[in-house]
């Protein structure tokens, strides 16, 4: 086991390329069911990477990134019903999320710690409320069903989600290595100090926020094409946000591989348990959450490291949390 893990670490890029290649040819070998399972894994990976980007890197814990998923989903669904081709609808989902995330980020990122987390939670709820009450646009609580004739084929959806997962991962990997990523981590460690050494914290945070909103926007739009239905509760589901957090934490927060490993393991576990034992499956997810937080703060990925250091976004000992 350790040798595989070490291999992954030292030859991450090769391992990644192999995985992508395998995923690209998988539809030839797999039936629709396994394709749609993988598709969902890709969706979760993309979402988790988005959350990783803002929360794992800057330490601004968002409890409401599902808001951008919902925005993208509605934008995608609406553009599709207005006659745009599906790929343009996906693009629109991303654009709408980006455009709205800019002012929202500028407002909410002034807040710190729990205030930011809760503000984001409120934002998601407001998204749900708008979708419910703006009946003329969204059809309110009844939601929007997309006619099968409007939808892309499963293969198309598969490759689109694969590209999204890949894109999100590469983005995180890229940021991880360059100066921007360094500055984000500086903000996470000590925002005042970062500012003092000349990091433009506001700009950095807002850029990270917008990037982390674009991905869920596009994911939402593809996702609505996959389920062919959307209503306010499914678009702005609080559980989706929790899923992102659990996946990132379980895999390893602030790392490139964490969200991928976390998504794979959790999705497989869920697939095995979910349909047959809905309550047990969720309760197990709860147990998993508690166990990971208490005993495995670096996530699964940290098991592969020799030093198994603590989660990188953890505050230094002795520091009082906000």
């Amino acid at each position, binding site marked *: *086991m*350790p040798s595989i893990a070490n291999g992954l670490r030292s030859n991450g890029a090769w391992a990644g390329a192999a995985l992508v290649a395998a995923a690209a040819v998988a539809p030839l070998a797999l*039936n*629709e*069911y396994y394709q*749609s399972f993988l598709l969902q894994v890709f969706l979760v990976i993309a979402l988790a990477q988005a959350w990783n980007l803002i929360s794992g890197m800057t330490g601004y814990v968002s409890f409401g990134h599902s808001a951008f998923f919902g925005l993208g989903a509605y934008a995608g669904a609406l553009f599709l019903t207005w006659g745009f081709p599906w790929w343009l609808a996906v693009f629109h989902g991303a654009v709408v999320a980006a455009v709205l995330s800019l002012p929202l980020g500028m407002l909410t990122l002034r807040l710190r710690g729990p205030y930011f987390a809760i503000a984001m939670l409120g934002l998601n709820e407001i998204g749900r409320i708008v979708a*419910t009450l703006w009946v003329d646009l969204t059809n*309110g*609580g*009844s*939601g929007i*069903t*997309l*006619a*099968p004739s409007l*939808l892309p084929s499963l293969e198309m959806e598969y490759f689109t989600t694969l590209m999204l997962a890949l894109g999100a991962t590469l983005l995180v990997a890229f940021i991880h290595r360059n100066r921007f990523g360094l500055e984000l981590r500086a903000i996470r460690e000590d925002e005042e100090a970062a500012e003092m050494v000349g990091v433009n914290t506001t700009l950095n945070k807002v850029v990270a926020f917008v990037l982390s909103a674009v991905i869920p926007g596009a994911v939402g739009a593809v996702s609505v094409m996959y*389920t*062919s*239905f*959307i*209503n306010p*509760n*499914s678009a702005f589901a609080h559980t989706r946000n929790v899923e992102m957090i659990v996946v990132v934490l379980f895999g390893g927060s602030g790392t490139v591989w964490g969200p991928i490993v976390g998504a794979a*393991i959790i999705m*497989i*576990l869920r697939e*095995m348990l979910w*349909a047959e034992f*809905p*309550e047990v499956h969720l309760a197990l997810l709860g147990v998993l959450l508690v166990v990971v937080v208490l005993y*495995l703060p670096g996530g*699964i990925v940290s*098991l592969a490291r020799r030093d*198994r250091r603590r989660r990188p976004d953890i505050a230094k000992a002795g520091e009082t949390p906000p």
Partner: protein
Amino acid sequence: MKRRLLLSALLSFLIIFVISPVVGYAQDIVVGASVALTGKYARTGQEQLQGFQMWVDEVNARGGLLGRKVALKYYDDESKPETGAKLYEKLITDDKVDLLIGPYSSDVTMAASTVAEKYNFPMVSSGASATQIWERGYKNIFGLYTLAETYMNPILDFAKSKGLHKIALIYENTEFPRAIASGVKSKAKQLGMNVVFEEEYGKASTDFSSMIIKIKSKKPDMVIGGSYLPDSVAFMRQAKENRLYAKIFAFAVGPALPDFGKNLGLDAEGVMGNTMFESTLKLPGVKEFAEKYHAKYGHEPGYHAAGGYGAGQVLEAAVKKAGSLDHDKVRAALFSLDTVTTFGHFKVDSTGRQIGKTGYAVQWINGNREIILPPDAATAKPVYPFKDWGKR
């Protein structure tokens, strides 16, 4: 070290699960469905499932379908449309079921029927009644229920005959309740009655006090709710607390269920509702079904249970008529089928929408649900007007 062990254990556990062969039903005819076992529609979903299961047991006792045993494959859709859609995708592509029964509630059906349409797979629905489902040009969704738009018509006719004309209309903001509301509005217009108050509420609402105070100020003659069970119970309870009075209280779904009386006790008295089935109906097999159901599950069947059972009977009749499980043949059989099940008459138009089934109005009288309308099926005369809270 300990952690590495933990990881290895976890991984081997995963691998064993993934490669372990899926237990199949090689010889059986598998009927797939998603059922609301948790979430808002859980109560009605369970009843419906028990109806399916009774049909499966009985059809197997009769020697099965086309000489093969029938098995039911179902999952919990958590009362959520998006979960329902995923589950039908799974049932069709992974479990490769032979026949499909629809989920409970119009909004889950809206989503699920799109999946069925995508795979061109006929689906018999015993849990949905919003007209919109059949207005999308789909060829694979067949309803058993009376259309939601017509639910309140007998009660509105009755109200008109008593000279009532001010209606307060409230409904949940989802597909089926909205369909009821639009039916009430057009019927009221036709009868020359006025909707003096109208408001939607959210799916999770349990507090109606502010709404009730507002309704009170409009002094309606009758209150009509496009509701399910929990909201209709909460509304009546709070209507009493706030002393809202009207000559008729009528709600969808809730009053047709035994739980309505169980939760409200005496306060259920006089509330009207609608149903598509009562065990007192004079249809073939109703009495036997009700007795067997009671013996098996310990309570009397509501219309959701009978609907589930009826959906099975419709599938059975269609497959027999088609003589095969081929989707095109089953679809053709469903379109041309004209039969009477325990649940009632089944006949659909060219969109798959139900046109044969009649609906009934019920009222809680002396702690029992009695059919009051139409008169030929009635078991009791309507009690009118609603007794004021203070005089009970």
